[in-house]
């Protein structure tokens, strides 16, 4: 390793070497060490209502197909023909029992198995073992309350363990009502010329930028957060629930904690109507008072509440991020409420959102400046609130006040852990080196073991 990733993040001092945002070596290692090991959000179960439904997306730099098989089971595969590496599915979504590589016509069933190879007899003389050349399936796939996640790592901890205490906050949007949530049709995608981490860190805990970056919306009635309950009466916290995740919440005051956020009239009425059921599921405290505002589930799944505008930050190079934007709502909500939320998200979020459009130049510039000669020598400051973290019995995780870099520090600490923790390949190499050192007579056996494993 020529680049010392461990030295690039010093969360104790709140300093980050800005080369982590633009150096190709860092990026390449991230794809392997972070995006091939973490649980990544693929989409929502309601995108695959019927058997044979599928959609395509990314896991880090790997294109994937997510499909509900003929048997109703959801699986995810690398969107890659095992023959020469062609793309077996070229569309965004749809319904298909099989996927056909346009190059030489290899076809794969939606359970991943290789079904058809042209000229199998005259070309391959029937010597091709079809079962060895199926689509590459993800290491694990799991669904958490409607959200489909996957990881390439067969040995990764379970999704529930990975989410940890973050699930307690995610449930505020995912587990409010019987039937859960559903996706609003229409996936917005756009490319921001920034490093994926700059987007993820903005959503994980950056309340600080709100009044400045988004200064304009607070001056236009209807665009800001103005409503029946002013936000400055609420306590605000950044919460770091562990594993590099982070969420910003308001804690509505006990004596003024009506349902909802107070700035969406129709939605608050609806939330009042369903409040009892939500209390039954989430408990009175969480239902009435805990209001998540923004969050990032490590590494690249971010949320803007209420209900939610979900952003998945797909890395497409050190300085390019493709945003995949999904909007989810309570499935049981009346259409009128879904419409209010949809319009709320469209007016604020997305490339044309009155809030979000002002973020992108900032992210592009903080990424871009990491290429500048002098700038590269200067550490970035993540010191806000350092040493003032605290715990609160009612809220899982480590906390600080609303204005703090606590979550960003936790995110980069997790980044450093993963970037320096050896991968399985490196562990095997180290094991072999050790055996060569201590038991030179066993090297042949170790090499043989490795081959068996790869095969």
């Amino acid at each position, binding site marked *: 390793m020529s680049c010392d990733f461990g030295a690039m993040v010093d969360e104790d001092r709140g300093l980050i070497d800005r080369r982590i945002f633009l150096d190709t070596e860092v990026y390449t290692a991230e794809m392997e060490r972070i995006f091939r090991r973490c649980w990544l959000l693929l989409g929502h179960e309601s995108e695959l209502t019927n058997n044979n439904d599928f959609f395509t997306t990314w896991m880090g730099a790997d294109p994937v197909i997510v499909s509900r098989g003929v048997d109703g089971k959801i699986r995810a595969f690398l969107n890659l023909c095992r023959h020469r590496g062609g793309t077996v599915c070229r569309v965004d979504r749809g319904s298909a029992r099989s996927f056909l590589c346009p190059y030489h016509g290899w076809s794969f069933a939606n359970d991943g198995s290789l079904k058809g190879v042209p000229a199998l007899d005259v070309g391959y003389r029937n010597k091709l073992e079809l079962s060895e050349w199926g689509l590459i399936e993800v290491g694990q796939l799991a669904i958490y309350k409607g959200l489909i996640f996957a990881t390439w790592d067969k040995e990764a901890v379970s999704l529930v363990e990975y989410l940890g205490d973050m699930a307690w906050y995610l449930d505020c949007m995912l587990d409010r009502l019987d039937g859960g949530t559903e996706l*609003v049709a*229409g996936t917005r995608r756009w490319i921001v010329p920034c490093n994926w981490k700059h987007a993820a860190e903005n959503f994980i805990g950056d309340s600080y930028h709100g009044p*400045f970056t*988004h200064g304009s919306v607070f001056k236009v009635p209807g665009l800001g957060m103005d409503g029946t309950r002013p936000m400055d009466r609420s306590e605000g916290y950044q919460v770091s629930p562990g594993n590099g995740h982070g969420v910003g919440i308001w804690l509505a005051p006990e004596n003024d904690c009506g349902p909802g956020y107070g700035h969406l009239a129709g939605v608050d009425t609806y939330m009042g109507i369903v409040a009892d059921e939500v209390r039954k599921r989430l408990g009175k405290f969480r239902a009435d008072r805990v209001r998540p505002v923004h969050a990032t589930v490590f590494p690249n799944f971010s949320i803007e509440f209420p209900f939610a505008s979900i952003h998945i930050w797909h890395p497409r190079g050190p300085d390019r991020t493709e945003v995949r934007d999904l909007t989810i709502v309570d499935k049981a909500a009346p259409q009128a409420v879904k419409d209010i939320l949809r319009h709320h998200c469209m007016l604020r979020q997305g490339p*044309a959102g009155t809030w979000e459009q002002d973020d992108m130049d900032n992210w592009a510039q903080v990424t871009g400046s990491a290429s500048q000669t002098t700038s590269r020598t200067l550490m970035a400051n993540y010191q806000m609130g350092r040493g003032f973290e605290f715990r609160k019995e009612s809220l899982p995780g480590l906390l600080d006040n609303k204005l703090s870099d606590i979550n960003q520090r936790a995110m980069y600490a997790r980044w450093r852990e993963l970037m320096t923790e050896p991968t399985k390949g490196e562990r095997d190499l180290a094991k072999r080196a050790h055996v060569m050192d201590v038991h030179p007579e066993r090297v042949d056996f170790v090499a043989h073991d490795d081959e068996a494993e790869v095969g």
Partner: protein
Amino acid sequence: MNTEILRRLEVEEFLIREAELLDQQRYTEWLQLLADDIVYWAPVIESVEDRRQTYNRVGELHDMAYFHDTKKTLGMRVERLAVGGAWAEIPPSRTCHFISNVMVESDAGFELTVRSKFFVFRSRLEAEEDTYYGSRLDVLRRTDGQFKIASRKIILAQAVLKSRSISTFF
């Protein structure tokens, strides 16, 4: 034939003047060209495969769109650009709205259905460049001897938008 050419010229003239207002960022005047009940929206486009057929699916009215505005929310967007702190336009972008391929699809007298293509270049900051292109389907309404835009559907041709933001209008 003559009437058709004259009508197309009249429509083209209107659309070109409208585009000029956008390039000059004279948004208050632009708003005056919009009918009070305007539906102004830009659905997303996704490629779909179904029963072995592939096609591009354009979002419907109840789907998520890049924007889906009324005159009121367009007014809020315009006001926001003027109040200070709308950083996607500080300093202001330099845009060129090219409008072409104007076709009057139908003319019911009171309202006309018009298709056109747009190509918008946005130059930002020093050398940042974004391009937006696609088709529009307008309903133009004749009101007091002039056109008002009664609805506009904007179909951006890019499935993944290659621009960081949309801070102009189409």
